[in-house]
């Protein structure tokens, strides 16, 4: 086994353990962990199964197979960041709506209070 493969396996296992631990402790909700889990598992598979890595590298014209791991990791990161942008946009929209409704509710509550005092 080459050193690069050992490093890749150690890294993928570490990543997987870290993610599972974060989920277990409730620090990442499952829906946000899904892409992380998928990336860790696929990286691990490609690190362990050298034959598959070589085959895909050959098929995609990558001369040095271990660099395929970087490509896969990079694509997953792109996906994860894109996913976050979608989530953040949704959150900011919901946050705006909440703020607006709180302001209107406060206003109408004060009007209601004033009406009752009279």
């Amino acid at each position: 086994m080459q050193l690069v493969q050992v490093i890749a396996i150690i890294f993928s296992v570490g990543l997987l353990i870290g993610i599972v631990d974060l989920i277990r402790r409730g620090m990442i909700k499952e829906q946000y962990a899904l892409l992380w889990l998928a990336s860790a598992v696929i990286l691990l598979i490609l690190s362990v199964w050298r034959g598959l890595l070589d085959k895909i590298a050959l098929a995609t014209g990558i001369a040095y197979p271990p660099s395929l791991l970087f490509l896969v990791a990079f694509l997953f990161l792109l996906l994860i960041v894109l996913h976050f942008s979608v989530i953040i946009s949704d959150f900011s929209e919901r946050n705006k709506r909440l703020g607006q409704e709180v302001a209107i509710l406060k206003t109408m509550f004060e009007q209601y209070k004033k009406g009752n005092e009279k």
Partner: protein
Amino acid sequence: MVKMSNKVLIIIPAYNEAESIEDVISAVKKELPDAGIVVINDGSRDATSSLSKRLGATVADLPYNMGIGAAMQTGYKYAVLNDYDIAVQVDGDGQHPPDQINYLIGPISKGKADMVIGSRFLEMGEYHPSLARNIGIKIFSTVISLITGRKITDTTSGFRAVNKGAIRFFAQNYPDDYPEVEAIVLLCKAGFNIMETAVRMKERTGGKSSITALQGVYYMVKVLLSIFIDMLKRVKR
């Protein structure tokens, strides 16, 4: 159909406008005694909210500074909840003279348009923008006129009136950061009818313009990009 008495709401978005807000509210009350007034206080750190309340305006205090778009939309949501027929946007900084509001409301109550924009450029007025600003105004005007298929001279004017249908639309869809230009595109895409009418505007009596010279170029690029993104967006009426 022309209704005899339309419920009119004046929406005044205000961010740190304590210097000018009292004059604006008093002038609106003098010109339109029957209209409702709602001041949307966008997280001001000065006396904007308390001064407005003292003058008898309804004030909606946003929990934090949410930006002009979110503030305006709050006004439209308030208008929907309270069943207003016409809503008029008037800036809290005093640049929109309330004696001009009737020019905006007129075409709406006659059913001629869904939104009427008060334009500084339809008639020669006192407003003389700097060269850089003038170029920006021309570019916006050209782009918006091309997109909407009708001539809009003052795309950045925040002095406008809308009818009930457009109030409902804006309560659901209103742009965030620099909403004046984008709102025209969205409204047009949703099939609403937009027209302009000549109004007089004043130099601001207090506060600063929300756009400094340095931000001008950023503003232009951002708004133009947003317009093209709006063109891609699906708009539900």
